[in-house]
């Protein structure tokens, strides 16, 4: 825990300074997680603010210290999920239309030919973003938490409140769909 429970209790009682301290302690971590979940740096602050806004208005429901971080994670996941859902309504992702450039980029990334500059990072994000268009927003987030954030199944269980076997099945299916899209994209373009 980055903050002690006393601080959380003070924030629960309406102490704005205490709430500020909680935000300052967690915002960098939360923003990093959101960046990886949504792959759009330009919207990360907006989603992070939404997470802390939800935290502010639901903090009084928190009873136990040990559930604070999984709970904050759940708020983050839900805010990212809502963002992705809105985004999908605005634009369609189609892995079958993964551009040749993105496929080449994916190969280049894994092949070690690309440079580590921002342009390269942007292309990597776009390639992964397109690939993840082949699964639902919920599965996308689940995959990201497991494969990129490196969360264990036990941790995921706490966040999703779903048993481990169900999570395993869901993860396996989601990964298969992404792999299929990955293979289709690569096959289509060379």
């Amino acid at each position, binding site marked *: 825990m980055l903050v002690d429970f006393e601080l959380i209790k003070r924030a629960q009682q309406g102490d704005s300074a205490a709430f500020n301290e909680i935000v*300052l302690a967690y915002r960098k971590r939360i923003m*990093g997680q959101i960046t990886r979940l949504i792959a759009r740096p330009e919207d990360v*602050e907006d989603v992070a*603010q939404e997470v802390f806004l939800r935290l502010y208005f639901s903090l009084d429901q928190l009873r136990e210290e040990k559930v604070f971080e999984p709970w904050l994670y759940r708020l983050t996941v839900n805010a990212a999920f809502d963002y992705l859902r809105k985004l999908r309504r605005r634009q369609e992702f189609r892995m079958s239309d993964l551009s040749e450039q993105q496929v080449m980029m994916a190969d280049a*990334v*894994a092949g070690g030919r690309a440079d580590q500059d921002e342009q390269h*990072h942007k292309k990597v994000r776009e390639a992964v973003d397109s690939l993840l268009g082949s699964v639902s927003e919920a599965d996308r987030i689940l995959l990201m938490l497991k494969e990129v954030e490196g969360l264990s199944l036990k941790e995921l269980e706490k966040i999703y409140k779903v048993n481990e076997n169900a999570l395993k099945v869901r993860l396996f299916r989601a990964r298969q769909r992404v792999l299929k899209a990955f293979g289709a994209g690569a096959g289509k373009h060379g």
Partner: protein
Amino acid sequence: MQPLRGTDDDKLDALLREYAKACPDRDPSANFMPNLWGRIEARQRQVFSFRRMANTLATAALALSIALGVYMALPHASQANPGQSYIEALAEANALDAPDIVGPVHLEPAAEPAQ
């Protein structure tokens, strides 16, 4: 960076590792906290106006109920005499001369019984 060799599984893993590097933890802008508090205050105002509206509606509904209750309890000029029985009230409402209710009655003389 891992070389691109092997199955699609390996390639995907390599891509995701690279993705994690492409999305490092980042520092928020200077406006992060002011914007956050701005949003919190806006939401609080929204909640406050909603509560105020709900309270106003509840008060109006209560006042209307009381007014209706008082109105129903007061005797009205058109109301039938409370001392009347149901039958009396019905007879008064449907007087015999009301043409749509009671039409002309034709009585046939009864046939003379055969002697």
